[in-house]
């Protein structure tokens, strides 16, 4: 054992690596959190020390994932904060408007350059049959999330809904708060900043509820999503190589994978924040229980859909300007929501189709509301919603239009139940995981609440055992041994 090697390996682990962004379910984060937690507990009630300490840790967290782009975050926060301070000193509406738009333009320009420049260049190339080379741009992690936070802050300050922070450090704390920095939830200033001002202690119950959320998140993200993705990836990598039934399982699998992946990470973020005494709000509320698309968007990525509602849909006129404008506003909001997910036409299409679905649901609502509340009606509503959502996830995930249509065509033209038993036999663990996650959706909410309350109230040793069992389960599926791809068809 060479101490020099050990030192260098640790340094390398702590250094920025574009291939290894820091995620909450990693051993490195766990180790760093062990250092962070006692120091945070010590400075918890000394406000300036606490804010400074968390900001430094958050910036390091961002540096580990995005390298020197953390300076971009610092710069953005400085501009926002300065403009917000100027804004509140101005009395003229026009001047305040200029400040708001100044901040929004800066934020969107940065996002536009890093995320959409190559997309627009590519489209321009297609139109003029040009020969431009794509720009060598690296997308800073989490830029879409903190840009939306920054916009919500400046707009709320303009509207008078939020009192701007006295110090830049407070604003940087809000914008760079590490639990929500790289993958949300999109924290709103009007919800978060009062918590910073009126700081109160996290109770023991909240601390262990935070731990419970982390455990649930790890199970969803690092165990279920990461495992089932291995099969789903095969289907999407080679759409022609699989039967209709296998393609269908890949599509259903991806539907569950994206939920577990995203909501699991949100759960971890919310849990870590709760341990620190901050509430981030719910981001997912069993969206796959929804019986219509409107309900789905109220329960899926809640922080994004409510952001889009408050800062896009309502300013566009919402439902106040007639039926046609309501549909158009809804459609535009979803279109932009789609583009927010990524710079590609497939995301635009995905968002647009959700917009169409929402419009159709709104149009049919008077008729749907008259239907009897029988279970069969609920079941059909749920099935129609899930089929539509899952179908659109295919476009969201597939590499190209062609691949999306190939998978859909396979499902409808090459479907045979003869594949069912061999599939279950060969992909046993995949099926078990899918059954568990679908089954957990079928359980009443109060059962989930009861389990979390049981955990919070359980003896310390039980919590330790539960935590260690989950960690070991992650290791069983993630260690140096190659986790098996479940099955293949060449």
């Amino acid at each position, binding site marked *: *054992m*060479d101490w020099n*090697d*050990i030192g*260098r*390996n*640790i340094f*390398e*682990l702590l250094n920025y*690596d574009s291939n290894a962004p820091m995620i909450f379910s990693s*051993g490195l984060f*766990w*180790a760093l*959190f*062990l250092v962070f*937690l*006692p120091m*945070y*507990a*010590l400075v*918890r009630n000394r406000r300036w020390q606490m804010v400074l300490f968390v900001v430094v840790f958050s910036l390091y967290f961002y540096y580990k994932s995005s390298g020197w782009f953390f300076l971009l975050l610092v710069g953005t926060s400085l501009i926002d904060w300065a403009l917000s301070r100027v804004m509140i000193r101005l009395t003229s509406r026009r001047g305040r408007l200029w400040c708001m738009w100044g901040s929004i333009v800066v934020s969107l320009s940065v996002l536009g350059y890093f995320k959409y420049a190559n997309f627009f260049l590519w489209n321009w190339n297609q139109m003029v049959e040009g020969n431009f080379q794509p720009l060598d741009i690296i997308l800073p992690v989490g830029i879409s999330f903190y840009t939306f936070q920054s916009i919500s802050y400046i707009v709320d300050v303009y509207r008078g809904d939020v009192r701007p922070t006295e110090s830049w450090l407070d604003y940087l704390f809000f914008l760079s708060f590490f639990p929500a920095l790289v993958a949300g939830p999109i924290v709103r200033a009007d919800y978060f900043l009062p918590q910073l001002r009126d700081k109160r*202690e*996290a*109770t*023991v119950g909240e*601390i*262990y509820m935070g*731990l419970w959320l982390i455990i649930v998140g790890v199970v969803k993200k690092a165990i279920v999503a*990461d495992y089932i*993705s*291995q099969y789903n*990836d*095969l289907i999407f*990598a*080679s759409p022609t*190589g699989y039967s209709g039934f296998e393609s269908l399982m890949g599509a259903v699998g991806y539907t569950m994978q994206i939920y577990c992946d995203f909501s699991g990470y949100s759960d971890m973020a919310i849990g870590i924040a709760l*341990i620190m005494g901050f509430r981030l709000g719910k981001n997912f509320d069993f969206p796959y229980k929804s019986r219509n698309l409107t309900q789905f968007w109220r329960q899926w990525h809640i922080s994004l859909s409510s952001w889009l509602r408050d800062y896009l849909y309502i300013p566009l006129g919402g439902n106040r300007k007639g039926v046609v404008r309501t549909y158009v506003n809804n459609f535009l909001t979803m279109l932009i929501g789609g583009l927010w997910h990524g710079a590609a036409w497939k995301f635009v299409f995905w968002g647009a189709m959700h917009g169409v679905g929402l419009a159709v649901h709104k149009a049919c609502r008077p008729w749907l509301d008259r239907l009897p509340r029988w279970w069969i009606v609920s079941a059909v509503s749920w099935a129609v919603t899930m089929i539509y959502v899952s179908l659109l996830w295919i476009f969201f995930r597939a590499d190209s239009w062609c691949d999306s249509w190939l998978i859909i065509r396979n499902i409808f033209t090459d479907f045979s139940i003869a594949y069912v038993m061999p599939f279950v036999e*060969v992909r*046993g663990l995949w099926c078990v995981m899918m059954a568990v996650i679908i089954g957990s959706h079928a359980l009443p909410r109060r059962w989930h609440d009861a389990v979390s309350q049981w955990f919070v109230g359980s003896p*310390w040793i039980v*919590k*330790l055992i539960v*935590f*260690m069992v989950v*960690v*070991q389960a992650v*290791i*069983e599926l993630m*260690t*140096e*041994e*190659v*986790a*098996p*791809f*479940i*099955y*293949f*068809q*060449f």
Partner: protein
Amino acid sequence: MRNGYTGLWTLLAISFITIVAVSAFDSINVMGFELKTSGIISRITEPYHGSGCQDESVAVADSMVADTEKISFPVPVDTASQRILLIGDSMLEGLSPRLAAYAKQNGHELYTVIWYSSTSQIWGECDTLSTFIRKFRPTYIMVSLGANELFVRDIERKRDRHVKSILEQIGEIPYLWIGPPNWKEDTGINRLVEKNVAKGAFFLSDGMHFDRARDGAHPTRSSAAEWLDSIARWMPDNCNHPIRLLRPDNGVTSRAKRIIVLQPKK
């Protein structure tokens, strides 16, 4: 530390210390169940290699396979149609479709036996390979094993007899052992295989760059196809029994004549 956090910190610390301490072992046996360990200690204590040492795509990486021990002079390519048996771990998911395309292009038949999570130990301890040799009567065997043994400590002592057992089962049939696509430096599996196989019967994949699937280990489909292309390019001048592997069209994959899937051994 404030009271509310003491319990949580103690819980996290005990778990972390346990996981780190246990990672000093390859695996631990608890009431008959073999539990994997995290590998944290080996990650921290491994010799430092710096970052970014692998940077060339397998598609253009002829130079990267130069480390493979060569035969002293090229052997004429066996142009006969072959019945190829491809055996190994989950890496075959990427290799087999591309090899099937080569087989189709060159008039060979391909039989694939994929045993998930398998190792040289698993294949070496049983007669599964002999059974499939009797069943398919291959004229050429390709083995892709080692990815699940990259970090086994003291591997040369533990696995030597298993590698020898596999080679004994292969017997006189011409073969090629395709080394694992390392994503980190191994503890000796490549060295062990190379030591046991005949000269020109081992393709060292270590040192190549692979685009990885999201598990960070398996090459993507296209990268695995390029991996197989590299093997086909390497064969004529370096292999002790090269077979005809003219390149099919770019990106083309196909299906083996027969695919057998074996589940992980528990």
